[in-house]
């Protein structure tokens, strides 16, 4: 059931949403640039311009070609991450406005995040390079471990709000944010976002020990799209967490749309910051952690949420 408090805006606002996502991804890149500059002991000023410099460099760089590459699949995979992020934000309400008031918005997010399995592996496959393919399979190993906990983490807010519609879920937590009584589901969701974006602890698929893994042979515009797609996925994941766990537009003084942006930016900055705070987990070891620890834990969380929802209704 869709929620009457949400207004569907005309389709041309999709351009605005895309621009906003681009802005958030740029902010994420700048935050990462600042943190890298600080970690390297360079002046903070060099961090600001780092993303812009990288964009300019990649736009200018000549495309590298590999022998017998499957160009169609390679390019599809590389550009796909950005498409995924754009599709995710279509169902995220910005305060009272949404582009796509889908009654099964939560399942939509899930279907879009599963596309990462296809796109990352295809990027690894297409280059016809051993290191890239190893990276692709590392991602699939992560995927087998993180996807089910992530799915069951998405179940918790949907059960609590008795709806799969993102706007209704946001409206259901006007009194109490879901993150307060389903913290484990929130943490597992954030883990899933990090994993989809191959970020921080889940960066083994693009790690230096396999010469950049999936991105080993990417260059020029292809690399720019892939990198931009990773930042955009972080931003889209943070934006989706706001109506799911962080109360949507709820907050004092500021208008609802501004609260959504503020919360998204705060979570996004935290996710970017985590990159330098957590070690990379090995895909083979994480497989068992995902199935033996995270999946039962998140199922218990769902049971608890279902019990509370039943008692309240």
């Amino acid at each position, binding site marked *: *059931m869709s929620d009457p408090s949400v207004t569907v805006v005309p389709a041309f606002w999709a351009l605005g949403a895309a621009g906003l996502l681009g802005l958030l991804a740029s902010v994420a890149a700048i935050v990462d640039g600042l943190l890298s500059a600080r970690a390297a002991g360079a002046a903070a000023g060099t961090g600001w311009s780092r993303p812009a410099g990288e964009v300019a460099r990649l736009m200018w760089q000549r495309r590298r070609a590999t022998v017998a590459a*499957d160009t*169609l*699949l390679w390019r599809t995979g590389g550009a796909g991450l950005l498409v995924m992020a754009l599709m995710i934000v279509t169902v995220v309400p910005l305060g009272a406005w949404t582009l796509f008031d*889908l*009654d*099964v918005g939560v*399942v*939509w997010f*899930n*279907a879009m995040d*599963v*596309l990462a*399995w*296809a796109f990352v*592996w*295809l990027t690894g*496959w297409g280059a016809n390079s051993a290191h890239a393919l190893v990276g692709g*399979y590392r991602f*699939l190993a992560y*995927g*087998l471990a993180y*996807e089910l906990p992530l799915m069951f983490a998405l179940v918790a807010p949907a059960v609590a709000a008795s709806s*799969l519609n993102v706007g209704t879920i946001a409206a259901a937590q006007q009194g109490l944010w879901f993150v307060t009584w389903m913290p484990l589901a929130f943490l597992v969701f954030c883990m899933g976002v990090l994993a989809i974006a191959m970020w921080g602890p889940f960066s083994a698929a693009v790690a230096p020990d396999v010469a950049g893994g999936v991105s080993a042979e990417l260059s020029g515009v292809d690399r720019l799209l892939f990198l931009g797609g990773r930042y955009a996925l972080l931003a889209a994941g943070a934006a989706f967490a706001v109506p799911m766990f962080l109360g949507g537009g709820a907050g004092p003084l500021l208008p609802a749309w501004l609260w959504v942006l503020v919360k998204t930016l705060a979570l996004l900055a935290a996710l970017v910051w985590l990159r330098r705070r957590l070690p990379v*987990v*090995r895909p*083979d*070891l*994480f*497989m*068992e*952690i995902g199935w*033996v*620890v995270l999946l039962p834990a998140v199922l218990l969380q769902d049971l608890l949420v279902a019990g509370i929802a039943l008692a309240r209704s």
Partner: protein
Amino acid sequence: MVSHVAFWVLAVVAVLAGAAVFIVNSMARASYALAVSFIGVGLQVLLLQQNYVGVVTILMMVMEMAVMAVYMIMFMGMNPALMPMSMVHDKRHALAVSIGVFVLLAAGTLIVPWPTRRGTPPADVTMTLGEELMGPKMLVMAAVGVVMAATIVAGVVLAAHQTRYDRFGDDLRRRPADDPQPGGVGR
């Protein structure tokens, strides 16, 4: 009008992508041609306003193709999967069977008297579907779920070369298990 055009475009894409599965010469292309075909079908289900079924079709099929890539390495070995190869085997019999099935199904759609609609669709089809699955059909669904899980586990056990005697020793007492790929929680 728009939904008519979308329906036919998606139908053509789904059929062509389905045909491409047998024409291309790489397992990756075949897998993802199948995924594109299923995405077309999933979007058509969305046009039928079965939103949950449509989105879940896309979700499951894309994931399934990625899992296929995992199995490709697990059980086929790297080399054959990575080389260009024909996607058809035993062409004559396969062609006969597929033409037969097509004729049967096509004849069915033409000959069967289609029922006229009784009643009206419910306001929230997702909710009705959930109530149907979790209510009167609960026992069937629960049994099917267990059978499917058991099939998957049995399939992997039969295909894997390692047995519990390899893991735990002849007396099954060795701890931790001797695994080629150690797990993350130290069992």
